[in-house]
């Protein structure tokens, strides 16, 4: 019977009752049904929290974020401080993850690297989402823009990304560094390089959803009310494509972190005194046999983040999907 819920609304209202009965009290005239109003976000959380993987993922991710944000403030060792006497050390109390070839504390570096990697992941994701959503919505909503914008998207999809990334990095490194200083400059550069080369999937998904949504009656209702397109988009379209956007977002963070590490591998990432997970991992790979920890810890951090975010994304997908949520 649930199949009914899965299809286009309107085919079977009977199942609506089922849904309501199963998930939230029916608001009727009866006093017993006057329970507190539950927003749909509550429902989403409800479903989300019943997904064990997603919950664990969220916990791990939060823990990592906390560690990375607060860690460097309380951890006494500076990630860039070299201590040549104690280099290449193993695990110890002073250096819980050991030290590198210059005697820098790996724990401090992993935390510091996480700040950058996560910041890159989050901002690049945000950028690609904004771009993708903007283009997707414009293409989906305005029929006249659809053709040009989708050709534009195809163009980006057809552009080989690696050379593009490389060229971007080479081109804008200096002006940005000059304008914002080395750290912010390169940060902006990498974030925009990743963002600009990864919005296309989101745009396509969003466009598809907007096209479907545009035909939904509540958008028509808004048009009949006289709501101008601009507000239809912000009020009716955007909130309803939140679920694919959220899922894209979680995947986006993961890919951005991995892309950043690949950039480091190709020597185009952050400057060397900037520990990012990708860079640490890449540096550690040559020492894999001697000091496996050097590559292991940043590698583990990347994997954990990607893994946890993927689980969160999975959970969100289920939670935001009304068909699944109804069950």
């Amino acid at each position, binding site marked *: 019977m649930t199949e009914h819920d899965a299809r286009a609304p309107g085919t079977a209202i009977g199942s609506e009752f089922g849904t309501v009965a199963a998930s939230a009290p029916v608001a009727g005239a009866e006093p017993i049904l006057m329970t507190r109003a539950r927003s749909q976000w509550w429902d989403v959380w409800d479903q989300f929290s019943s997904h064990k993987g997603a919950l664990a993922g969220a916990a791990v991710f939060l823990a990592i974020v906390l560690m990375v944000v607060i860690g460097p403030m309380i951890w006494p060792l500076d990630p860039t401080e070299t201590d040549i006497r104690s280099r290449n050390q193993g695990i110890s109390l002073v250096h819980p993850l050991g030290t590198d070839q210059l005697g820098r504390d790996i724990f401090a570096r992993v935390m510091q690297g996480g700040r950058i990697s996560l910041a890159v992941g989050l901002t690049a994701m945000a950028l690609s989402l904004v771009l993708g959503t903007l283009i997707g919505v414009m293409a989906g909503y305005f029929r006249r823009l659809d053709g040009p914008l989708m050709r534009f998207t195809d163009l980006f999809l*057809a552009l080989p990304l690696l050379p593009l990334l490389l060229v971007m990095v080479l081109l804008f490194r200096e002006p940005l560094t000059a304008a914002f200083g080395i750290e912010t400059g390169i940060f902006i550069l990498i974030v925009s390089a990743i963002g600009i080369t990864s919005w296309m999937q989101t745009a396509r998904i969003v466009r598809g959803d907007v096209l479907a949504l545009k035909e939904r009656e509540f958008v028509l209702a808004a048009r009949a009310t006289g709501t101008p397109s601009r507000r239809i988009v912000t009020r009716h379209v955007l909130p309803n494509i939140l679920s694919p956007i959220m899922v894209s977002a979680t995947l986006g963070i993961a890919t951005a972190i991995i892309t950043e*590490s690949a950039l480091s591998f190709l020597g185009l990432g952050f400057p060397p005194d900037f520990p990012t997970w990708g860079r640490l991992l890449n540096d550690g790979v040559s020492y894999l046999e001697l000091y496996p920890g050097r590559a292991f810890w940043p590698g583990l951090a990347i994997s954990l983040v990607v893994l946890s975010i993927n689980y969160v994304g999975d959970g969100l997908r289920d939670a935001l999907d009304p068909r699944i949520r109804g069950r």
Partner: protein
Amino acid sequence: MLTFTIRRLLFAIPTLLFIALVIFLLLELAPGDPMANVPLTVPSEVKEQMRVALGLGEPMHIRFWKWIIQFFWIEPLNVFDALFGTGFAEGKLRIISWQNRAPVFIAIAERIPQTLWVVGTAYVVAILIAIPVGIYSAYRQYSIFDQAGTFVTMVGFSVPPFFSGVLVILIFAVQLRWFPSIYDTTLEVNSWEAFGMQVRQMFLPVMVLALQITSQLSRFMRASMLDNLNQDYVRTARAKGLRENTVVLVHVLRNSMIPVVTVIALGVPSIFGGAIITEQVFKVNGIGQLLITAIQANDLPMVQTLTFIFAVLIVLFNLIADVLYGMLDPRIRYD
């Protein structure tokens, strides 16, 4: 369908020309110099002369135009000559690499076999693994198998190949000595023994690549299966008294494969494109490695030709994916 295909092909031409221009301009604007790898002991005047000898002195639009002519006319003529022993292309200047002053297509032709071998095999292996895994995970959603599969695929997705590649080399090539760590591109498979060698040297890169591809494909397969398992026609099939196997492997699978097949088709250009990092790690000197060395050497004709070929392939396979979609799904009729 035919009109659709022709229309898309016609559309592809301006798109590709535009892409060619974009690539050309981007590369043109990029800093870097083909003489960077020439030792510092060579004085700069000499480097300047070498640059001029490469044709760098000419203005940009002329070089672009030349390149377009070479790519679309002279090189195809050369292929024709090579196939039929004719001599149409004689004396015409081909696209010349700056690194070695040889036609870039010679290098590309040399690289295609190993890339196809390794990346292609990995792709096939990945498809063969991903599809059953995806089917079973979806069918038993939230079962142990599904959970474990999800975990493994996500790990596979999250470990960058420059790490996993070196790791398997250390384990299987250095410690266990089961497989070679360096790919021999000169190996000719002309005996069983050579075939065994080939399998052995392909094993590690294929494994690393396949893990990555499997991760993505199996997630896709699973999602697609899940979408279809809830459809009404599945209930109809069950109501007909069909065996569960038939229901899932005939009715659901056929529908689920439609989007997956197009995803697979869309991935094919990446086979030709090679897997840059994996090729680098395993010294499979394929197309990907060619591209990266060309980038490092600022060999613009090579980079440009390669990236443009990728773009052509991407556009082409996009089209193929659309056509496939139309063929697999009887509901879709392009006109």
